[in-house]
């Protein structure tokens, strides 16, 4: 079945790409010696601490203490494999990353106190997914509805106004709109909390907790939808207008189908594949861009963790997050291929969808 073989081929290509991306991240990080320098300073710190609170070393002379410290440091460096050149250690890092074992964070901790990077990420990832998937879905729904209306009367007043709004809203960075909304809604009108994921003290009962999170999510959600639904409406409208040029729309009208039948049963269904593609791309795209917005909204997700990791120079967390982002990207591309095949029969039984 050529579609299945096509899928197998695509999965192999995507998996290879993912490993290449991971390799690139590690090389970039390791290549500049940052990883080694940071690891060595961590070791030196541990050894110092160990030496200081070890009573019986106090009596030794300065030179002897230094000598012992050096041996301890060398021992630890060998244990961590730092003595071997970086290139040899890349496979080890690669394998670790592939098995989601990103080692320990240097400074950052998960709310449960664990310093394991994978725990930290596991804690923050759902929050980002929650916010940006809901945001993207909402913008898509609003956008598709408006796009349909615009396509009904092309070049009509509503169409022109919405197109202008689409261009304007596309030219505004999400995080700036977020800052303005905080100023307006949180500072001036005091309607919504200025940021954060949940209020302190954390409500114990789950329903109250859910509502509290929703309450905190309102402001970022409004920002996300405000910035992207215009673009959605314009894209859907253009796709529909292209489909209207096709002959089968004329045939559908000639068959005496009502205008709404023509619109929903034929036009919308024929443009479903590209719309779904755009939806998935927008979800993963927005997550990639979430770093700054989460800082502005103080939304404790992947983005803010990344920003903190950058300011604290917590390299293991940075590498892990970059990898997770790439993993999400590639995973979405794969889901995309499968979905495209299901929605568009020509792909299911015909040639591949790429180019």
């Amino acid at each position, binding site marked *: 079945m050529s579609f299945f073989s096509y899928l197998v081929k695509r999965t192999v290509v995507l998996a290879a790409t993912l490993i290449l991306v991971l390799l690139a991240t590690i090389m970039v990080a390791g290549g500049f010696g940052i990883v080694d320098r940071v690891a060595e300073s961590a070791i030196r710190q541990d050894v110092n601490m160990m030496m200081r609170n070890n009573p019986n070393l106090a009596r030794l002379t300065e030179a002897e203490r230094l000598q012992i410290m050096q041996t301890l440091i060398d021992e630890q460096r060998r244990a961590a494999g730092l003595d071997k050149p970086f290139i040899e250690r890349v496979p080890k890092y690669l394998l670790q990353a592939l098995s989601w074992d990103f080692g320990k964070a240097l400074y950052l901790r998960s709310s449960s106190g664990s310093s394991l990077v994978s725990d930290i990420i596991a804690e923050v990832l759902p929050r980002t997914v929650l916010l940006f998937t809901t945001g993207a879905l909402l913008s898509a729904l609003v956008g598709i509805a408006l796009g349909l209306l615009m396509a009904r009367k092309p070049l009509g007043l509503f169409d022109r106004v919405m197109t202008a709004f689409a261009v304007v809203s596309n030219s505004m960075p999400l995080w700036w709109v977020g*800052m303005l909304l905080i100023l307006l809604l949180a500072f001036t009108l005091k309607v919504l909390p200025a940021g954060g994921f949940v209020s302190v003290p954390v409500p114990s009962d789950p329903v109250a907790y859910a509502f509290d999170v929703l309450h905190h999510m309102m402001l970022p959600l409004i920002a996300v939808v405000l910035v992207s639904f215009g673009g959605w409406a314009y894209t859907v409208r253009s796709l529909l207008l292209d489909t209207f040029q096709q002959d089968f729309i004329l045939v559908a009208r000639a068959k005496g189908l009502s205008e709404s039948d023509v619109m929903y049963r034929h036009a919308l269904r024929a443009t479903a594949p590209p719309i779904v593609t755009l939806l998935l791309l927008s979800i993963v795209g927005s997550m990639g*861009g979430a*770093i700054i917005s989460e800082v502005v909204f103080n939304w404790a997700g992947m983005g803010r963790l990344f920003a903190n990791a950058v*300011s604290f120079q917590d390299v293991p967390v940075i590498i892990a997050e970059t990898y997770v982002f*790439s993993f999400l990207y590639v995973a979405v591309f794969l889901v995309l291929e499968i979905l495209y095949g299901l929605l568009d029969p020509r792909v299911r039984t015909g040639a591949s969808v790429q180019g």
Partner: protein
Amino acid sequence: MIQVAKEKPRVQTQKNRELAEFVSQFRQSRAGMVGLVLIIMFVLLSVFVVFAYPYQDVVKWNDVREWTNNPPTAPPFWVKMFSGKSLPETQVLNGSVARRYGIENIYFEDRVLDMSFTYDVPPAEVLVSIDVSFQGSSPLIELSWIKPSGTTITILRKAADRSTEGPPYAFSERLYVFIDQDVKSNMAGYMMSTYGAFVPVSSISVANVLFGEESPRVANASSIDIEKGIYQLKLHLQAYDPSDKITGFSAVVKGTVWGWMGTDVWGRDLLIGILWGTPVALLIGALTSVLSVGIGMTIGVVSGFYEGTIGEILDRTTDFFYMLPVLPLLIFVSFILRPSIWVMIPLLSVFGWPGIAKTARIITLQVKQEAYIEAARALGASNLWILVRHIAPQTLPFSFANIALLVPGYIFTEASISFLGLGDPVLPTWGKILGDAQASGATIGGYWWWVLMPGMMIFLVAISFALVGNALDRIVSPRLRRRA
């Protein structure tokens, strides 16, 4: 009928006819023209800025000490129009005349600074700087504040202790009048002696006492009426050596509003930062998109034209870069390199070109199918000839539209990176200003101008390029999106 004489057939007719047609089509789109006008304005602004504020001034932007004279977090002056009250502007007072006199072996010197203050609201801050030089024992200095009504309040009385080695000794004082503890206790003393009203030092508002109408409750009243008129600041020196003297006496009365774009928490004039942000944004936006369109087009066209192994390899590399998560990696690399803008530009375009390459490849594949390509081959044209003479001209107009369409994206990305403080360490950029604003809690603190102005500039530059890009795209792209 075109009367064409036998002279050299003008090949240029083909070029400028095509150009004239292109320009007339572009002129029809009003939005496109608006965008173009905006861009021209921004370019002129950038040229003006580079000359008006040369590079050394800009370096001062990062040196906070330069801006101490400015009131911190002061909104722009035109806020007065909306607030209905007249708000004080910053005044710098100096040029006092020394009056010297001596009684037996004690030498005195007096200096007075005048200030007219007719606003409805006290200033944000008063900063007095005093410098004295003396030979032996430290002289006594006394700073007093004379209100229009004549009442005199002693703000400070202290001995000028030695702050440098060897005679002559020098003493310097930079007094933040509203927040200095000694001043506060003197104010409490004054309130007790004039009204017998005991006011705890912690709750005293020095501004109210110095500027408010005389009344026992003035010290900590929530709102006060200002005594309008000429105020005086008198510095009295009592020294024990004839050569002792006041070498410097000046004051800055910081207004509550400042300049066109207001100031940030360090008192920096946001106007300079925002103005200087324009050339940086344009430079980065334009150069990066030109670079990435250049790379993208070449790779896209070549991988589309040579469909064999070369095409396959190029296409796979395009896929690889296409699937990289742009922002995280960019931030990661900026974190390591701390790039100046000359490093940032190639860095940004490394992530930008795959999109272009993919579209260019599709266009090339389409053009390749056209019969006139095979006709050229039948005429004996080589691959290179076809690529240069037939494929490239077809894809060229497409690249112009895309150069404009890519600029907004790059400006956002650069702004995001400098928002996190990883951008160009020296040059002020809109992203950095917004980053500082976020870090100093401008959104929660209500410093709306600090957020609105730089963001508005990003928006304006972005939308101008978007408008031009859309207009170009509509002319160039074969399928007109908007049905005529």
